[in-house]
């Protein structure tokens, strides 16, 4: 599979070496639009990773998959362009920053012969294991989910290329709620198979002050948010997202989940299991068994998507899932702006009734447990 990095602004510096390590995948280059505000970043990524810097049209003509890694507010435009060129598309997270854009993506995917998916953590071993536990019936019906996603620092260039890419709403679509809310929203959907009906959120966005000493306040966006969800069938969930000065675990991003069922519960911690090493000098480090969950999740995402294309399967995360996750983040932003007023996430509103019917019957984040 020939993969084009369609704009190399966010995460591409991590994705390119990972993609290159996978058999059967070739990274053919990085491309960006002529009017991209980050065209220099894309060129720099190409130079740093030793891949050609291409014209977007030229790159799309010669790839199988476009991996969209622009600033988030340009994800939808680039993904739609690639889908309209008949390419398969993986969009970096969050795949869109508004449900209007998510809907455009969905409609473009419906029209395209290319498959669409987005970067997610559902292949993370602990999340996949929790899903298997739910599917086994061991905990009965899942009734409540408690999810936490915390990033430790990283705005110094360590994990985020430029602070404004997660802090400037014109580039990011919001603060950490938009940046990270995507992951737990997808995970909760994956584990429960239910639509979110109501969102309540408190955040540190203006008029409140940020919780920590980062650049979020200068842009009026949140560095932390606490969210309550009501899903179908009376199921509930909470989401806690933040960028904190220090993390919970050894990874730059730590996430954990707890699922309460009618007959039991299951816990998931992406930092576990790990082996701890302590040296005579007093240093200690934790090594996750089978490597960092984030890397495992990405590796499986890329390889599984290639198989989805090759064997005509439905990707684990579809346009419907993308829309649903974006709708939760958007509703949470809206609720937090209104002091926590309950907000119903947007649903697809186009007059395309065929597509609407498809959405209602579409599997929710891997509806089949056979994967």
């Amino acid at each position, binding site marked *: 599979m020939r993969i084009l990095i369609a704009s190399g602004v966010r995460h591409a510096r991590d994705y390119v070496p990972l993609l290159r390590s996978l058999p059967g995948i070739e990274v053919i280059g990085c491309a960006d639009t002529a009017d991209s505000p980050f065209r220099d970043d894309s060129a720099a990524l190409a130079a740093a990773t030793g891949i050609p810097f291409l014209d977007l049209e030229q790159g799309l003509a010669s790839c199988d998959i476009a991996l969209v890694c622009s600033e988030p507010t340009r994800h939808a435009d680039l993904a739609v362009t690639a889908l309209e060129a008949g390419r398969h598309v993986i969009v970096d997270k969050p795949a869109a920053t508004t449900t209007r854009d998510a809907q455009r993506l969905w409609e473009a995917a419906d029209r395209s012969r290319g498959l669409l998916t987005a970067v997610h953590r559902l292949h993370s071993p602990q999340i996949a294991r929790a899903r298997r536990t739910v599917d086994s019936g061991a905990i009965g019906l899942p*009734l*409540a989910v*408690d999810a*936490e996603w*915390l990033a*430790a620092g990283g705005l110094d260039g360590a994990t985020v290329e430029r602070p404004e890419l997660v802090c400037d709403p014109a580039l990011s679509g919001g603060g950490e709620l938009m940046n990270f809310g995507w992951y737990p929203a997808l995970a909760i959907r994956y584990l429960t198979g239910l639509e979110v009906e109501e969102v*309540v*959120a*408190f*955040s*540190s966005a203006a008029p*409140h*002050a940020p*919780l*920590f*000493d980062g650049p979020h306040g200068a842009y009026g966006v949140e560095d*932390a*948010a*606490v*969210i*309550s969800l*009501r899903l179908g069938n*009376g199921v*509930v969930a*909470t*989401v*806690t997202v*933040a960028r*904190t*000065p*220090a*993390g*919970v675990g050894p990874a730059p991003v730590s996430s*954990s989940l*707890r699922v*309460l069922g*009618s*007959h*039991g*519960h299951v*816990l998931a*911690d992406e930092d576990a299991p790990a082996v701890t090493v302590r040296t005579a000098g007093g240093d200690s480090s934790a090594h996750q068994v089978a490597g960092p969950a984030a890397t495992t999740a990405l590796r499986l995402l890329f390889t599984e998507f290639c198989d989805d294309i090759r064997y005509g399967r439905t990707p684990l995360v579809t346009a419907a899932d993308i829309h649903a996750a974006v709708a939760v983040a958007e509703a949470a932003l809206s609720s937090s702006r209104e*002091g*926590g*007023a*309950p907000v119903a996430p947007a649903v697809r509103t186009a007059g395309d009734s065929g597509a609407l019917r498809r959405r209602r019957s579409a599997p929710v984040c891997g509806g089949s447990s056979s994967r």
Partner: protein
Amino acid sequence: MNPVPVPGAQQARDTGQRADDHRVAVIGAGAIARDHVTAIAGVPGLRLAHVVDRHPERAAALAALAEGATWSTDPATAWSDAVDVTAVCTSPESHADLGVAALRAGRAVLLEKPAALSVPDTDRILAAAKTAGRPLLVAQTARFQPVHLEIARSVASGAIGTPRLAHLTWYTGHVWPGGWRGWQLDASRSGGHVAHNGVHALDLLTWLMDDEPVRVFARPCRTWAPGMPTPDSFQILVRFSRGALATIELCYALVERGTFVRRLMLAGTTGTLHHSSEDEPRTRSASPVAPASTEGAMTAQTRHLRDVLDGVAAPLTAPRQVRAALAAALAAQLSADESRPVDVKEVC
């Protein structure tokens, strides 16, 4: 005739009682009163002197656990001259009146949580304590769990700077004794589950974050016992006066009684604290022994009560914290009942 001494047996048992022991009267003879009596027996310097319950047989049975303890069905005997401290262990709807009466009679008071079922009643209790000049300790026992004392020490030492974000998850396999008779199932007596059990978590965070909740949103959830007239589980979002945020997830839904999942993440301006009961060695099945991180809180609280009575410690539950936590819990109950976020001042 004395029995024939058995080798190794004590012939003259020292009950440990001293003339200057603080004499405790317990009002209420239910499960929590029994826990207090057990803890009192383990703390030198305190002595169960008297038990009051409206059911004579329950009062007598509890008093029988302590040598020399008397019992009565008359609440006023719990703040008589023969008593130094009154432990109010009745169901919540009677806390305010009993607590105020004991304080006005000049007794120190250990008051089970929730302190009251309204903020004005809480204010009445706090005012009575202030006027009487007598100690008031509200039994927010979660503060005395070893892990929370350790976290409090870490926060006080500046280990994480100023706490700004908390995520507290407590799951417990719990079945209320008494079946359908339990006062916990009657919101008019308990204040509602969000109020009477949510106050544990809200008090803990009020204390650890040294701040007061100003806005809450609570969402109830029915899990293992959907037929109960009160949700067995609930979540609370909290905004504090200085902007800090918290997610609280409380569940009494674990299938096996006696099992626990306890987790607290506290992120501060310079660091993050984290504890999970999953990290500590313990039995994997239902156990009569609580995790080490939580075990012994009642005894620690009772020892603290003794220190308060000895005049060597101030009650850990400061009046402003008692009021803030209870108000937040009542606001959370209102939020859960009406499915909307509630400003805490709305219930004040």
